[in-house]
């Protein structure tokens, strides 16, 4: 449906490297990246606000690179929502229809239909300045849907919302997508990306690092950066040692990892998710590491402890292991790494 072919753009101090991506009809495509990665710039290029230095933007196999913003039929909601402050909510929603010379009766009918569908019919006689963040987003969605866009671009739509409103909007966006709307959503929030995306792409420093299904990216991150973004907290630089026939930590050669399969790289990054490290209750015949707890922190997923096995490692403690007086700083524990679930990325 939408295809970006070798899109490039340079500014002093920033370069969007040639970006190629394809969004299919009905997809919920999430572009994930930190601030300054070039996400919003890419969105502006697709919308027609910014012209790329090179490359083409194709919509339904048609080159729209030279089309004006008002002729592209791409809906866009910017991060600041941009409701027209001098107009009532009704006139905001009606705005794109009046631009298309749609008759007044039809405009009224459609505003009524959209405002009901998005739960803002009680607000149509109000000005935008009195609306909450969630209400403003709904009005902006009603307004952009009034254009019947082929593609909807959303720039960090959940940023200004509290947790409850976020959940509501996530449900609404999912419903819109299920009803057939193709969506490109940019965000810096991993949770948001994973809960919405049918296809995920990672943008970092102007480069598209990885693209695929959220499951594939979470499971097989292509680089240490993507791994960290996917909240894999153990990214250990390792080197192959012929004498031992195993990989050892580059920072401490005494730490040896017995990988079940030798991928044949001389050096790489070993990615071990914190939940794939088991805490052993008692001495075991399994290969294990002796570890000293150096720090503990409570997260939404439970308790996370940082331990020293010669190098720092983060371990997620399962809820059933928790108890009073357990996992205190300085305590000694034994760990077993489920290396079958780990991933080794070569350093090239």
């Amino acid at each position, binding site marked *: 449906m939408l295809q970006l072919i070798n899109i490039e753009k340079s500014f002093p101090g920033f370069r969007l490297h040639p970006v190629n991506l394809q969004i299919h009809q009905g997809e919920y495509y999430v572009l994930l990246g930190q601030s300054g990665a070039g996400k919003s710039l890419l969105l502006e290029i697709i919308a027609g*606000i910014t012209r790329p230095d090179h490359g083409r933007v194709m919509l339904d196999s048609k080159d729209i690179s030279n089309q004006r913003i008002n002729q592209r039929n791409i809906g866009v909601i910017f991060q600041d929502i941009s409701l*027209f402050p001098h107009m009532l909510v*009704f006139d905001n929603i009606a705005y*794109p229809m*009046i631009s298309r010379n749609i008759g007044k009766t039809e405009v009224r009918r459609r505003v009524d239909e959209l405002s009901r569908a998005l739960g803002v019919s009680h607000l149509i006689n109000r000005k935008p300045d009195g609306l909450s963040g969630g209400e403003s987003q709904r009005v902006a969605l009603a*307004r952009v849907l009034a254009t019947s866009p082929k593609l909807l671009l959303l720039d960090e739509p959940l940023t200004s919302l509290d947790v409850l409103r976020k959940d509501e909007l996530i449900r609404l966006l999912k419903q819109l997508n299920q009803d057939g709307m193709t969506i490109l959503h940019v965000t810096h929030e991993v949770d948001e990306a994973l809960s919405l995306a049918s296809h995920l792409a990672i943008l970092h420093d102007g480069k598209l690092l990885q693209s695929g299904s959220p499951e594939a990216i979470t499971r097989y991150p292509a680089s240490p950066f993507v791994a960290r973004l996917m909240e894999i907290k153990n990214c250990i630089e390792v080197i192959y040692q012929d004498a031992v026939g195993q990989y050892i930590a580059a920072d401490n050669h005494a730490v040896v990892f017995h990988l079940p399969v030798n991928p044949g790289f001389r050096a790489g990054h070993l990615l071990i998710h914190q939940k794939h490290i088991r805490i052993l209750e008692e001495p075991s015949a399994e290969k294990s590491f002796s570890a000293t707890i150096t720090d503990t922190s409570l997260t939404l997923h439970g308790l996370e402890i940082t331990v020293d096995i010669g190098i720092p490692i983060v371990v997620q403690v399962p809820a059933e292991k928790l108890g009073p007086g357990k996992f205190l700083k300085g305590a000694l524990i034994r760990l077993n790494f489920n290396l079958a679930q780990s991933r080794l990325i070569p350093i090239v």
Partner: protein
Amino acid sequence: MLQKPSILYLAAIFLGGLVLLFLVAPLAGMVLSTTFPDLLSTAREADVTRSIWLTVWTSMLATVVFGLAAIPFSYLLARKSFPLKNLVKGIIDLPVVIPHSAAGIALLGFISRDSLVGKAASWVGIDFVGNPLGIALAMAFVSLPFLINAARDGFEAVPRRLERTAMALGASPARVFFTIALPLALRNIISGMIMMFGRGMSEFGAVVIIAYHPMITPVLIFERFGTFGLKYARPVAVIFIIVSLIVFILLRLLANKQKTNGGIR
């Protein structure tokens, strides 16, 4: 316990008081030394009422006609970068800094019967010199910067994001201008128009060179002062100040009134 005001604060109050006194005292003195019967009889003079009416409508004409051209130009200045933009901005401010009599001389050379513009105008039966249209031109020349600068500031304060959103919603650039930029900058534009109108009404130097007759009120005040002295000039000046204040306050009230939206409901 109340904090003791600083010396700087006290000095600022004292100096501010002096400045206000300097502004108010001459005006108050003039009003107080004019009797009500004098004001009434002067207000009944045909010359006076004619000149006030002429001053008001010529200034209004200058503001409306030049406003139509200046407002889109201000939008251009606020939104686009172009070569020599700073020079253009400097040219706009020029009438504020040059002596207005000099501006009148310059304008006279431009619109007199011998000039290209003058010849073209006389071809369609208009002679700017000694004509209300010439007066309006002189008023516009000296007061236009107030409108252009205020409108430009207003347009600059409109977030570009709103205009881009409107474009993305299918609006043409002209619709974006009329439905987004213009309404959001309207307060500044009206304020600029009031300033232009007020400045045009009070103009003397440029107008007196273009058209001594028909007489606008500032020229009438000058003439009465020159011919009959302070006593005769004063009532006209007081009446003109009162009229100016009333018009100014009325326009300000209108500008501050909540603007209604032109929706379709």
